[in-house]
């Protein structure tokens, strides 16, 4: 059994609880164990690094130090948490002075981070550690005929890993094909969802969301799959506001990829946290998993 240290991040506590639920259930079904870190804290999210870098690194390093003690790779389901942790490891390894400062602060908590931890996004666990072939072999209810738009967002491949194609990645599509659905090819799959821009510049943020939704819908997507709570909120919760602002008529469900994988694995709606959507699920999807 594959085992990982798991850093859920703040969003998965409440707002994205369905992501947390479905992540735990699908990995369990696929023979992967996610051990939630003890006493973890916020990763600093999108803004903290612009306010106080040193403190922001320390926040991340604290989680990493806890993870390091387990000797396991640490997995984050949220793209922002993943990116922050990934860059913190990279920067602390390169910058001895920064590492010394951070570790001085961590001493208060009897912690020390030496840089020996591998950070992964949850989707990498599905794409690489489990892999599309293995995933396919476990599928009981293939999502045949369902067109899923893989929405990578901007952060998953931003820390470029060795030889990774950061401009046209295909791993999300491979997961979608593995669960029997049809991946939608649309040009904006890597574009930013706006992040927290909605707070400071509403119109600009809504325009970004509108363009993304339009691109997916133009390419006949039944549902958009995401791998990040921030992206999910922007694309789903603000759909109504986009419609009001631009006179559009979008009604496209935005689901976590783990929920879609879970449906194909035959898990119940309840176990996947389905039923709390702002945009109703497509009837073709609703039919799956309803015993």
């Amino acid at each position, binding site marked *: 059994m594959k085992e990982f240290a798991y850093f859920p991040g703040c969003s998965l506590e409440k707002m994205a609880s369905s992501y947390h639920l479905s992540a735990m259930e699908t990995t369990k079904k696929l023979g992967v164990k996610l051990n939630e870190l003890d006493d973890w804290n916020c990763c600093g999210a999108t803004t903290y690094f612009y306010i106080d870098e040193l403190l922001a690194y320390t926040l991340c390093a604290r989680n990493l130090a806890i993870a390091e003690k387990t000797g396991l790779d640490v997995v984050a389901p949220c793209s922002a948490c993943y990116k922050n942790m990934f860059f913190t490891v990279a920067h602390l390894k390169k910058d001895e002075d920064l590492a010394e400062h951070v570790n001085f602060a961590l001493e208060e908590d009897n912690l020390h981070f030496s840089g020996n931890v591998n950070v992964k996004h949850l989707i990498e666990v599905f794409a690489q550690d489990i892999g599309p072939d293995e995933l396919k072999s476990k599928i009981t209810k293939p999502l045949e005929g369902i067109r899923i738009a893989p929405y990578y967002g901007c952060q998953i491949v931003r820390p470029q890993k060795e030889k990774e*194609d950061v*401009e*046209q990645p295909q791993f999300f599509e491979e997961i979608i094909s593995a669960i029997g659905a049809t991946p939608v090819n649309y*040009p*904006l799959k890597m574009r930013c969802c706006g992040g927290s821009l909605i707070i400071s510049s509403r119109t600009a943020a809504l325009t970004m969301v509108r*363009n993304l939704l*339009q*691109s997916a819908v133009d390419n006949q997507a039944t549902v958009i799959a995401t791998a990040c709570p921030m992206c999910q909120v922007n694309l789903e919760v603000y759909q109504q506001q986009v419609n009001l602002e631009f006179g559009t008529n979008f009604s496209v469900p935005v689901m976590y990829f783990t929920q879609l994988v879970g449906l194909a694995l035959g898990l119940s709606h309840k176990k996947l946290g389905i039923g709390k959507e702002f945009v109703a699920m497509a009837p073709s999807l609703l039919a799956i998993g309803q015993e």
Partner: protein
Amino acid sequence: MDKKDEKEKIGVYVCHCGTNIAGVVDVSEVSTWTAENLKDQGVVISRDYKFMCSSLGQELIEKDIKELGLTRVVVAACSPHLHEKTFRNACSRAGVNPYLFEMTNIREQDAWVTTDKAEATKKAKSLIGAAVGRVAYQQPLESLLVPIDSNVLVVGGGIAGIQASLEIANSGQHVYLVEREPSIGGHMAQFDKTFPTLDCSACILTPKMFDAGNHKNITMLTWSEVEKVEGYIGNFTVTIRKRARDVEESLCTGCGICWEKCPKKVVDNVFEAGMGNRKAVYTPFPQAVPNYPVIDRENCTYYLKGTCKACEKFCPTGAIKFNQEDEILTVKVGNIILATGFDLFDSRKITQYGYGRLANVFTSLEFERMSNSAGPTAGRIVQRDGKTVPKVVGIVHCVGSRDKNYHEYCSAVCCMQSLKFAHLVKEKTGAEVYEFYIDMRTPAKTYEEFYHRLLEEGTHFVRGKVAEISDATRLPGEEGKLIIQVEDTLTGNQLRVPVDMAILSAGLESRHDAKEVAQKFGISCSADDWFIERHPKLDPVATMTDGVFVAGACQGPKDIPNSVAQGAAAAARVLSIIGQGEIEIEAATAIVDEVTCVGCKQCVASCPYQAIQYLEDKGKAYVQEALCKGCGTCVGTCLPKSITLKHFTDEQIVAEMIGAMRVMKSFELMEVA
């Protein structure tokens, strides 16, 4: 090998090299010091002079040899790479064996790398001490003269190889021209127009191809590859594999009935860049030289299924011969010219430009074929659907070039090529044309004028590297278009340009097998796998391996005029060697002491030039002097110390070290005092 009994008379000459050396090293002090302090080492005269390499400087040495009876000479000046030969010749003229001369480098290895004048002066003295110590132990050597075989091998039948072959053949010498493809012509045969004159590429190339094909002094071996090269300058033995054509050359008239009748269509990924089809029996293009076809066994129905044979049935002369065997030819040549050309950068690697994913993104070579009236669209510029004429076209420069993710170098031809494309698009379709460039590079005769012509023709020039080409259309009227996202760095604005067609001006890269080829011919490659020339400025077509020359784009990105110039230049170098009749081989070679050699063959395996033979009858190793480059690798591997490298004996090297240390020791004693 003892030091001669009678007292050696050594002359030392310290060069100022203008201010190159004298600006840092106190040369007159070095000279006086040498005369006084190295007297006991046999130095009878020490002089300094402004330019030792000048004829007056050389005469100084010759005069001293004659008047003072010098037996050995040391010159402290620049690198031996530059002037060792000059001074060896001077010694030789005055009757001293050239190997009794030693050159020590107080410029590159002292003056140019030392800022402290006192330190530099000291270093010059110890270097001279070392050279004086060594020269006393040097032995007179005689260079070997080998005759030059006047036949020449030219590898690659592109424009550079054709030019080189014609020059040599016209002078009356014989050329073997080896080409991998079924026809000579190379990339130039694929192009439509040539910049900046816009004359038709085929029209200026085919007469040369025809001349090469019919020249009595050229043996053309197409559909062939060099397998093995043995020997050395003047005496190479080359093994060539002539692949089976399945067509009997002596019977074929090139009538074309076979490919007319052949039912099998194959996408032509080589000549037509995937834009058009050919048959399974084919010549790549109508003006192919030679004009007899080849059968592509991978696609021929007969080879796949055992049936068909339509070509054989219809051939009026019975020239089709299925199951022909490859021929292995061995030829003797004296010199080799490599003109193996380039590969086009694979634009698929830059995924954000969408080539291979977005239909209307074309590569430069695809565009050349499309614009060529003999090409797959008969010269019409149309979108991938084969009929829609584009209204807006974007041309992207530096695809794979000047980009640290792919190739850092500039591919040299793409700016001009892109300008040519813009002109052709405008002329043929009247479309709006955008050029997206980083810097416009048009540095050759009448190139800049061509750029100005394009500016006046109304092409839009946007200075900026394209970020992305996508199908992310959004606004009304954009449906089906490509969106080019770019920052205009002159205005600082982000631009989003909808176009119907994008052309990627892909860079040039070295042949995928350049490394193997280099190894085969004993030459080396740069970090980007271009063949390395002997000197980037002063010897651009020779290589470090005597008798092997390079020409055209295999040495680095180059346009047609430069490739032709190099082809002719390489031919001239070869003809000059042939004219000499025989050539002197370096005398500093390795020699095996047969008494102590145990025949372990370690040296045979270690020699990078295959110069060492194992003599079965004697059970000893033997160095072929003409092949030996004097690198000394074998000396290091020989356990019983049976190999000596002439001119680099242990004795000489130890004497050199002692010479240097003696001087340094005297400095120390002075400091203590």
